């Protein structure tokens, strides 16, 4: 789950990381008032969870409170990469001497947090990494020991930070480590961390990504979730304990298990079709859950056929079949349905479904082939 810039910076401030004075607003009158309080010269920054806000015209400098209001009128209500701008952050404009990059993320390969820093801040760090990898400093942090002071100093030295800023920098680095740990982040990023003309270090921008698996113990963060970035079907799916991701194809998929769900999408493609979604119904397949899955899959108007692929391991095939039948009674789908049931009591399950006019298949390949054919017939492709 991603946090907005203003949310991330509010958290940074609680850990002693200096941020510009400023506040978030949702209408231009508030923007004007905040700008007046800050002395007129402000930056108006759209708060949407995508990269490239600046290039899209979503970050603008105003010299007066009136200008800030005008800009806010333009920015609020804008769409950036399909996302509506509902809020802007109004920050005091800061005189910038130099821009630095500082972040912490999880390094999967080494199974440790890694602090990343660069003397080239304020630009896309991936770009810097691709162009001049030697300008990127990476330093692993022992998950049991945490970030040590000498490590922050190592980084300050490595990015050629003048000695007079070391103390400030080490405080920011330590604050960022605490932010990362205390909030179960998978990424915390200050880009840029600036040296101001009056010789202060300030976090001008902020980004945080939180581990979804840790939200149970971070209720204050969980409630910050921005639903604009998620498809409505994905939000519904989460409520039912389903994992759903919408894609562009014509064949809806309902599968138990994430790996098998991906493999099912892949084999549909292999047989000349395109999957309409990823959907993992997880363990068990009661009628309620299956019905919710059907409703979500069929809410996509592109779906021409549905492929149900269930490997009944511990779940019994006849139970799954009854769940499917009950769900069909309720949802009444009109597109062709191909079902493949394997494993425990699968024969009994297949018989129940064949009686209900569903197309059945024994192998994965057969199921893929039949669903591709059914989808083509249905949509006259």
């Amino acid at each position, binding site marked *: 789950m991603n946090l907005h810039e203003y949310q991330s910076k509010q958290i940074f401030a609680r850990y002693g990381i200096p941020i510009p004075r400023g506040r978030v607003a949702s209408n231009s009158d508030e923007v004007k008032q905040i700008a007046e309080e800050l002395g007129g010269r402000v930056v108006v920054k759209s708060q949407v969870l995508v990269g490239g806000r600046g290039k899209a015209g979503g970050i603008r400098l105003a010299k007066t409170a009136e200008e800030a209001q005008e800009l806010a009128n333009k920015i609020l209500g804008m769409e950036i990469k399909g996302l509506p701008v509902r809020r802007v952050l109004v920050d005091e404009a800061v005189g910038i001497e130099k821009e630095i990059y500082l972040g912490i993320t*999880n390094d*999967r*390969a080494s*199974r*440790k*947090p890694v602090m990343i820093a660069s003397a080239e801040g304020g630009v896309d760090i*991936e770009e810097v990494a691709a162009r001049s990898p030697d300008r990127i400093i990476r330093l692993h942090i*022992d*998950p*049991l020991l945490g970030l040590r002071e000498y490590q922050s100093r190592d980084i300050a030295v490595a990015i050629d930070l003048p000695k007079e800023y070391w103390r400030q920098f080490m405080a920011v680095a330590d604050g960022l480590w605490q932010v990362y*740990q205390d909030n*179960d982040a*998978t990424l915390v990023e200050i880009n840029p961390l600036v040296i101001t003309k009056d010789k202060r270090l300030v976090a001008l921008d902020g980004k945080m990504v939180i*581990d*979804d*698996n*840790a939200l*149970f*113990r971070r209720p204050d963060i969980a409630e910050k979730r921005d639903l604009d970035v998620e498809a409505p079907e994905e939000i519904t799916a989460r409520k039912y304990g389903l*994992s759903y*991701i919408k*894609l562009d194809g014509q064949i809806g998929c309902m*599968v*138990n*298990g*994430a*790996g*098998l*769900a*991906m*493999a099912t*999408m*892949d*084999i*549909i*493609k*292999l047989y000349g079709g*395109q*999957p309409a979604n*990823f959907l*993992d119904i997880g363990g068990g397949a009661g009628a309620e859950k299956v019905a919710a899955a059907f409703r979500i899959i069929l809410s996509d108007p592109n779906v021409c056929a549905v492929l149900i692929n269930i*490997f009944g*391991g*511990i779940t019994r095939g006849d139970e799954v079949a009854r769940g499917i039948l009950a769900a069909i009674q309720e949802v009444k789908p009109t597109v062709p349905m191909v079902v493949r049931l*394997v*494993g*425990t009591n699968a024969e009994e399950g297949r018989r129940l479904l064949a009686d209900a006019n569903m197309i059945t298949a024994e*192998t*994965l*390949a057969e199921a*893929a082939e039949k669903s591709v054919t059914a989808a083509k017939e249905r949509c006259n492709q």
Partner: protein
Amino acid sequence: MSILINRNTRVIVQGITGNEGLFHTTQMVLYGTEVVAGVTPGKGGDWVLEGKIPVFDTVKQGVDVTGANTSVIFVPARFAPDAIYEAADSGVSLVFCITEGIPVQDMMRVREYLDQKGVRLVGPNCPGALTPGESKVGIIPGNIAIPGSVGVVSRSGTLTYEVLYALKQHNLGASTCVGIGGDPVNGTNFIDVLGLFEADPGTNSVVLIGEIGGSDEERAAEFIARYMTKPVVSFIAGQTAPAGKRMGHAGAIIEGGAGTAADKIKALTNAGVQVARHPEEIPGLLGG
């Protein structure tokens, strides 16, 4: 022969009185697994399965009394890291964690601690392991595999069952099947298991089932090219997965353009691994 578990494996089940723990304990015992003890804090002195398995308050007690050497964990995510630490401190040398949804920062600390202790963890978010005809630890359905000489290692659950089932349809059996789990940070990686299969005289070939996300498959490819003499066949799930989306498993995500199925397939192919286009092709690639 087999790896990790066999008929001498003595299992202690953490969370044995919970719904899942009890159900899968029953399944394990029916399969023939030597389940010798269970743990639920506060329920020490109870017995489950009609008085066959004693329940202890702590893992240490259970291990001391019954000589258990392997733990399997069925406790909710918020308690699972502590359960793993407890297992690691109890004297068992092998821990399976079935639990899904453990925060990744917890897992980084757990892994660091276990490495220092020299205790092996398999999982979390995994189905466990199955040595057909001898023992199963975890939740893999026993009836879908027969004994044989194919080693199976996978990041997935039901997709692994699919492969075991396809092997069985072609009369191919497994030496051991290990599910290493779908999380970004886990206890045992592909190369750990590949090394064990290479050294196991009962394994003649290996099936590696990977998926998008991370670089575990790429590192496996390097290991195979350098150290494996036994043939390896693979399938990688997620060729149609979009970038930036988490595909069910916490670890199944293409980040910053890295971790794609295409990269993994290329690395494995370059290492001499035959990569199946879909799971049902695997038996054919093994000559079944």
